[in-house]
């Protein structure tokens, strides 16, 4: 009985308990993350070999520069100045002294090693969390030495994905129309380059007018429009093999062929009997199917990533606006209701947004809106700009912009520009010539 009482007493005995304090952190900063990219260590033998093959003095430093430049261009990272680094690359790669990197305010550190093994380039790299003092990732790649730039891009993609939570967009290419000569007699060629502007190649000679090249979302195929003897023709081009084929000749004005998400169809608009509508063509059996049927002008179709919906622009309301319909052409809904004219809608690879060009009061805007038309945000404004194309991760848009070359408005220049969804990180993409109509490829390393 006594024990029962004592037990009860111990259980009920009030103990002074402290409630755990909870603090909700709902805001943070959007400043670029300070990251240190240490030059990749390289031994003397490998250095000499790569110097012979690639004519590069220090391949380790060159690859680190690519990573650094990519991270900086993304706007999400702030690569720190190498002059402030206290640790040598070879030692940092083995075991970083985190106190040294902490001292220069680095939150992440990239180290690595480059070696020449069996006539091949082997690159090891490690990503470190400086504040936690631990390794976040370690990978190694082996490839032919000529692929050294791609290795830099792949490393950036891995670092980007590990630190931001979304896939990168650096090991990608951009196809565009290279333009030269006066506006009245413009020579237009199909050209391709890495996303950072390097490795530029021309794919056509410029004898024929080429327009609107678009990458396939699944592989390295491109569809584009070319005028052969003044007739519009849709082509398919395999970037890897260089093989090209004619998909078909189409009547009247044909615009903007684009792949379906599975890469099996091409969607485009062309004018039949004076009425421009949206059509698809099955690439296997070449059967053309009419999707929209309306007396108005329907153009610029783009599939949603799941292939269930199509966005396009139409003037059926009296003014050019953006619409969304099912992939079979049913259930057409207008989604843009702002002032001005809307065009070139492109569905984001993430599926959450539609990018567009807007013309309002004589100015062109590149903007985004949700797929139901809400949340319209204009990212950039200029005298003339259009044709946005999404990066494969749906974070960055590339478009082209024409600018007056002098104050009188004489002459003009067309260049490619990129902007991210924040609207703050706007940058010109360097090209050898004037450029227009860009299209971003999917990740090459997927």
């Amino acid at each position, binding site marked *: *009985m*006594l024990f029962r*009482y*004592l037990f009860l*007493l111990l259980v*009920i*005995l*009030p*103990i*002074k308990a*402290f*409630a*755990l*304090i*909870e*603090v*909700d*952190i*709902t*805001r*943070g*900063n*959007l*400043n670029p*993350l300070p990251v240190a990219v240490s030059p990749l260590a390289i031994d003397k033998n490998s250095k000499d070999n790569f110097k012979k093959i690639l004519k590069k003095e220090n391949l380790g430093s060159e690859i680190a520069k690519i990573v650094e430049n990519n991270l900086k261009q993304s706007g*999400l990272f702030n690569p720190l100045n190498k002059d402030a680094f206290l640790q040598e690359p070879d030692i940092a790669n083995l075991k970083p002294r985190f106190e040294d990197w902490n001292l220069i305010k680095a*939150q992440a550190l990239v180290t690595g090693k480059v070696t020449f093994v069996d006539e091949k380039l082997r690159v090891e790299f490690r990503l470190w*969390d400086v*504040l*936690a003092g631990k390794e*976040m990732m370690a990978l190694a790649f082996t490839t032919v030495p000529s692929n050294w730039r791609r290795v830099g891009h792949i490393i950036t993609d891995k670092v*980007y*994905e*590990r*630190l*931001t*939570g*979304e896939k990168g967009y650096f090991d990608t290419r951009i196809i565009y129309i290279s333009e030269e000569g006066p506006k009245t007699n413009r020579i237009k060629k199909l050209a391709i380059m890495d996303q950072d502007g390097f490795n530029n190649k021309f794919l056509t000679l410029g004898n024929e007018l080429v327009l609107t090249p678009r990458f396939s979302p699944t592989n390295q195929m491109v569809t584009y429009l070319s005028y052969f003897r003044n007739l519009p023709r849709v082509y398919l081009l395999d970037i890897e093999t260089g093989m090209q084929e004619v998909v078909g000749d189409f009547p009247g004005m044909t615009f903007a062929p684009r792949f379906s998400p599975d890469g099996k169809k091409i969607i485009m608009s062309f004018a039949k009997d004076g009425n421009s509508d949206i059509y698809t063509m099955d690439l296997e059996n070449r059967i053309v199917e009419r999707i929209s049927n309306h007396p108005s002008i329907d153009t610029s179709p783009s599939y949603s990533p799941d292939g269930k919906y199509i966005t396009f622009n139409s003037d059926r309301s009296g003014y050019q606006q953006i619409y969304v319909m099912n992939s079979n052409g049913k259930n057409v809904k207008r989604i843009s209701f702002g002032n001005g004219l809307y065009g070139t809608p492109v569905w984001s690879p993430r599926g959450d947004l539609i990018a567009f060009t807007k013309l309002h009061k004589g100015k062109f805007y590149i903007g985004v809106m949700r797929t139901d038309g809400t949340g319209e945000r204009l990212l950039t404004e200029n005298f003339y700009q259009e044709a946005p194309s999404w990066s494969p*991760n749906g*974070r960055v848009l590339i478009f082209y912009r024409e600018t007056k070359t002098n104050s009188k408005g004489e002459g003009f220049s067309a260049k490619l520009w990129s902007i991210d969804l*924040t609207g703050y990180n706007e940058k010109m993409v360097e090209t050898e010539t004037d450029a227009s109509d860009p299209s971003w490829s999917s990740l090459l390393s997927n």
Partner: protein
Amino acid sequence: MNRSVIISFGLHTFFVIITAMSLPFLAKKPIDLPPIISVELIQITDKTNIPFAPKARKIIEKVKEKEKKLVSEQAPPKKIKKQKPDAVPLPDEKIEKIKKIKDKKQNPEKIETEIKQISEFEKKELFDSNNIAALIDKSKVESAETNKKLDKVTQDQDKEMDFIGLTLGEEDALKAQIFGCWSIPLGLPFNENLLVRIKLQLKPDGSIIRSEILDHARMNRPGQGFYKVLAESALRAIKLCQPLRVPSTGYERWKDMQLNFDAREMLEG
């Protein structure tokens, strides 16, 4: 039978005493709120243009006499030591010295302006720097008393706050500090559950003894890569921010703390 009754009685008494002693809220006194002090804002000219009245003079002189004592009592002993031992300070000199001491304590410019304004409008005999100093001192004494009273309230409340948590000001200071340290990974999908709960054990100076992600298992779950990225960014923020801006008192109440990092608001916007 009797033995059982005695044991039962003894244990019940013990239980009641323990309960009464260790549950302070049972004996909670009503919170003693400080009285509201009403402050009337008036134009300075209204005050300085008050016509001189003989009745007022008597009142001022009375106050002067009272405040003289107060001022001399409050003068710092060191200053007095510096005076020549043989010299007996004249009343005027004494006033001068007191004024100097007060000048050091208060904002000198402000006092100067007040003196100037009064001296322009009032007769010489009405102006008395000692009076001003005394009034200032009187207000100091009053404010000290009020502070004492407030301190009492704070101590009482502090006991209660052991069970309550951080005050709004303390919480805001901590939040503001962490906001600056947390670089939100912008690539995260905004429609997912983006809440990371981290339990901290803190030192009295706000530095971290231990940090623990409460839903750690989720970090390695397939398809939850974004959660890992978010959790790591939150841990980086805590490490970058330490020592955290914690209150200087009441260590017991905040030595264990939970921070809930929620990125949805930022990523949706």
